[in-house]
């Protein structure tokens, strides 16, 4: 328990830091509403002017509910601490962790989760209200079992995104100009996770390609659990695959981190 105490402190520090910039958080929340509004108006215009009930495999209710839920989940599971890790590697901030009895990997995860907890609470409350409204107006077939599996998948999606973030951050050991790699990975994650639009509208061939990557389990999969698009069997398989991808990213992250640490020359210390 004593060994664990330092990570609780890291969690608390992350929480304190997030509470310091409350205005920033509120503005960041507002900024995520604009793309969602644009998408809702766009797809409403498309469905309103079309004679077909279904477009690209989606009816109006499922398309709009996907856009709303996916936008919120996208915010919920977002990370972004790869820049801090990269700074630590490049400027020698990692030095102090080498000499101290604390694991850098775990410190970062706990500090991030601490900074995320307030955001998680507020965004989850917003999501709960929105889901209640959507379900009462369009009856998506949300039931307690689906809600539980949805919550579990969100938690796993957050962990998966966190470990992917750590995995990508290790690029800083080899690349001095790693900003491009980070922006590219963010773009790829945004696009392939289904955070911008439902990725299955791009066709079966594209979906088959995504089956071999972890990204669709970050936004697309949790959204379709609550959206009612997935059957229970598909949900259980998806959750198992989420766990498998988390294990794989942790293992890969540790391997890359270990190799990277051998290369680390503690510049700036």
């Amino acid at each position, binding site marked *: 328990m004593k060994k664990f105490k330092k990570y609780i402190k890291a969690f608390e520090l992350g929480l304190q830091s997030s509470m310091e910039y409350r205005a920033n958080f509120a503005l960041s929340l507002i900024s995520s509403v604009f793309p969602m509004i644009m998408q809702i108006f766009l797809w409403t215009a498309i469905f309103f002017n079309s004679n077909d009930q279904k477009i690209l495999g989606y009816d109006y209710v499922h398309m709009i509910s996907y856009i709303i839920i996916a936008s919120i989940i996208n915010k919920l599971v977002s990370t972004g601490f790869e820049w801090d890790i990269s700074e630590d590697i490049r400027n020698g901030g990692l030095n102090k962790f080498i000499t101290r009895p604390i694991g850098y990997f775990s410190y970062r995860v706990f500090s991030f989760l601490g900074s995320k907890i307030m955001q998680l609470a507020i965004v989850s409350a917003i999501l709960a209200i929105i889901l209640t409204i959507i379900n009462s107006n369009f009856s998506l077939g949300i039931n307690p079992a689906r809600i539980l599996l949805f919550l579990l998948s969100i938690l796993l999606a957050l962990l998966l995104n966190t470990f992917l973030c750590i995995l990508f951050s290790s690029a800083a050991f080899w690349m001095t100009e790693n900003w*491009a790699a980070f922006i590219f990975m963010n773009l790829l994650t945004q696009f392939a996770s289904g955070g911008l639009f439902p990725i299955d509208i791009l066709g079966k061939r594209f979906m088959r390609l995504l089956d071999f990557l972890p990204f669709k389990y970050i936004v697309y999969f949790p959204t379709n659990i609550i959206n009612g698009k997935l059957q229970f069997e598909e949900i259980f398989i998806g959750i198992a695959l989420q766990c498998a991808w988390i294990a794989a990213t942790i293992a890969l992250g540790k391997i890359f981190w270990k190799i990277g640490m051998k290369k680390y020359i503690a510049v700036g210390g």
Partner: protein
Amino acid sequence: METLKKALKTLKRYGFIYLIFIKNCLVRQMEYRANFFLSLLLECCFLGTKLIYTFLISSTDVNLNGLPSESIFIFTGSFLLMTGFYMAFFYFNFSNIKEYITDGSLDLFITKPISLQFMTTLRYVDFSTMIPNFIGGIIILAVGWQKSGVEVSFIKIAGYIGYLISGVIIAYSVMLAPQLLSFIIIKGYALGEIADALWDSNSMPMTIYSRPIKILGTYIFPLFILSNFSSLFVLDKLGAVNIIWGIIAPILFFFLVRLMWKNIIKRYSSASS
């Protein structure tokens, strides 16, 4: 006559300084060529995702509240061109403002014998983000122009370029305003996120939005002038009121942002020293 001469002389001086800014930026970017090409490659990726979405929307073959589906290419082309302008000439300058305030660079700029607003908001020019958006924008615009059957006439091209210039002035004025909040909210990245989100809301035809949003985005916070007006003009869908508003708005909002800047600078007190 004397005033006009003086104004022309000042304009010439600032034009010369701006050319030096451009030259310096080009030299700097060519010095770090790997960075330049990485940035170019990244912008191509962003462009790719935008194009995938455009093709997806046009594949539905549905008209967007009075606009044929193929006209989406004209809107995307115009949006990309405007993004090229914005990213090249304004984006990095605007997002650097908060850095200038926190690290004290702004204090140094104040002492220079040149307009502080000019120095702060136009100092950097980025070529790597401009090139892909310009090339992609022109190609997509040409495809949309041809697919929509728009005649190639002097009036259409001149009007299009005119509203594009009007969009550039609006981009400067409207996108600078939220960044000026950096003077009040010192820390944070969310202002940039809001500015980016607002910019992207212009990527689709304004006809998709409800009446209140259209009014808000055209007359109060005129984002739709950025790339929608030029596209609507060539499609003969702009309307008489907006044809005139598209000419007045850039002048009006430029002066408004100038006033805002002057006011904020008057209250500015150095944070770093």
